[in-house]
């Protein structure tokens, strides 16, 4: 454990070397929340209720969701595919560390910094635009599902990076993933406001379990322990939790499989 803490600490130090890059990054993050907020604000001015959401619930979903997103999607796995291609990955392979844990520690540095600043930024936004939020609900149910979303996102990102073992063109594949993610994970709106058939289709993919589900749990008024169907667009919360775990294990085993195949077949040509 201690070794991974050391990885975390050193990653923090690396971050603060490039300050301009850091400031620009935060600027981008702030824009990313303000744009959907303005957009939906305009819509909510005309229709005070969208789907099952009134203004406060909708805004709460966006703000809490953004906070979850900063933690879930903050990732350093981009580095891995370039490390594979230029051979730097050899350094990690030679160390007595678990590759998955080592990179998770690096990832945590990214996520923690992201979260730390996002709390301030969102506080400022809420204060400046005088936004009304509902207090977060269901913390006990939220935490394990939130942890799942962090891990699912990590394993999928790892798998994508491991494609670097077979191709140098990981970036386009990742780009498609990110586009999909931003539409169907629920970053810009709660997924249950879209038509039922499409919603149901999306709910069998891993995407909503990285963002929508934990955010939805946090703003849901209903007691999740009661067998309810109304709050989750016709699906029981139990079913959604089950899916979250299925995707957790599926993404983990996929990442492991691709990793094992990758390091076995890769040539590290002339590197």
């Amino acid at each position, binding site marked *: 454990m201690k070794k991974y803490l050391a*990885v975390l600490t050193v990653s923090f130090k690396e971050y603060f070397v490039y300050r301009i890059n850091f400031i620009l990054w935060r600027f981008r993050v702030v824009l990313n929340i303000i744009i959907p907020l303005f957009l939906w604000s305009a819509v909510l001015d005309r229709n005070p209720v969208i789907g099952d959401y009134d203004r406060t619930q909708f805004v709460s979903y966006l703000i809490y969701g953004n906070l979850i997103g900063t933690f879930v999607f903050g990732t350093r796995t981009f580095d891995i595919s370039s490390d594979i291609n230029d051979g730097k990955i050899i350094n990690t*392979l*030679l160390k007595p560390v678990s590759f998955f844990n080592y990179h998770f520690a690096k990832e945590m540095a990214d996520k923690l910094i992201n979260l730390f600043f996002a709390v301030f930024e969102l506080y400022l936004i809420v204060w400046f635009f005088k936004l009304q939020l509902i207090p977060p609900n269901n913390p006990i149910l939220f935490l394990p599902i939130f942890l799942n979303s962090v891990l699912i996102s990590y394993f999928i990102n790892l798998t994508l990076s491991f494609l670097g073992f077979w191709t140098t063109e990981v970036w386009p594949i990742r780009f498609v993933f990110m586009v999909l993610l931003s539409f169907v994970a629920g970053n810009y709106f709660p997924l249950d406001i879209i038509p039922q058939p499409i919603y149901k289709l999306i709910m069998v993919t891993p995407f909503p379990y990285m963002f929508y589900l934990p955010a939805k749990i946090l703003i849901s008024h209903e007691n999740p322990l009661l067998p309810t169907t109304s709050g989750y667009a016709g699906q029981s919360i139990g079913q959604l939790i089950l899916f979250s775990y299925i995707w957790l294990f599926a993404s983990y085993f996929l990442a492991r499989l691709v990793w094992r195949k990758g390091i076995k077949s890769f040539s590290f040509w002339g590197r």
Partner: protein
Amino acid sequence: MIKVKNLSKIYKSPVKGKNFYSDLFNRQYKETLALDNISFTIGENEIVGLIGPNGAGKTTTLKILSGILYPTSGVCQILGMVPFEKKHGFLKQISFIMGQRNQLIWDLPAIETFHLNQHIYDIPIADFKQTVDNLTKLLDCQDLIVKPVKTLSLGERMKMELIAGLIHRPKIIFFDEPTIGLDIFSQEVIRDFVKKYQTENNATIILTSHYMEDVKRLAKRLLVINKGKMLYDGDQNEIVKKYSLEKYVTVTLERKIDEKILALVAKPITYHFPRVVYKIDKSNISQTVKLISEKLKFSDLTIEEEPIEEVIKSLFQSKNKNIDN
């Protein structure tokens, strides 16, 4: 300590297809034989020089030994373990130091990388401090470890690289071109350091280098490979005796002589008055010396073995022909 038996490695690389479609759905692969049935064993406390021209399979060998590459066939065992399994017990006892790649964190001072390694290898803080102290003294670089790595010169960086790689006092060290790109003074420092480190720590070392000087000074035993095949495995001195067919005869002349007269002995390979050098078949030495004393007036005459570089060069050339045939 290190056992390698019938080790082979075939690399598969994609061949560019006719068009995008065939690249995507019907990719063709080319197979390259990088190591061909290699066997050797290395005992404790040995320094072995692994030499061969570019693409001979030196780095591939080291990568298999250190567990990075999965061999296509054959057995490789180190300290009773299979490298590719990457057991932590194995990784803690080896180090792979490459002149062309570094593990140092680019933006931070090297001491940060050392600290990180201290935690990764579970080194007690007292041992860590002592090792860093020791190694920085040996390399005379106490002031460099606090400077950001990106501000160091190549030679300085290599020193830091050595410390980062040796902080866990590995039993087995693979050096891949540790002096590449360095000036002759830095080369000398690194060589001396490796030698000292090895004697103090009884480490087993495999070294590859394009600079014959590195290998000559450090390794008693040589493994010579070319095109993935083992050409020679044995003592450094033996290779000259075994494969050298010629000797160098250097004559210091008393006065300038016409080249035609010099050629009466044999065709000289160089002539800069007063020195003239002949390369003579070993079997003809006595005859040549006799001829020289008859034909030339000289103040000095020396007979030397062919330098090891030349022997190895001709070994590659002759074996190449055999392999190609």
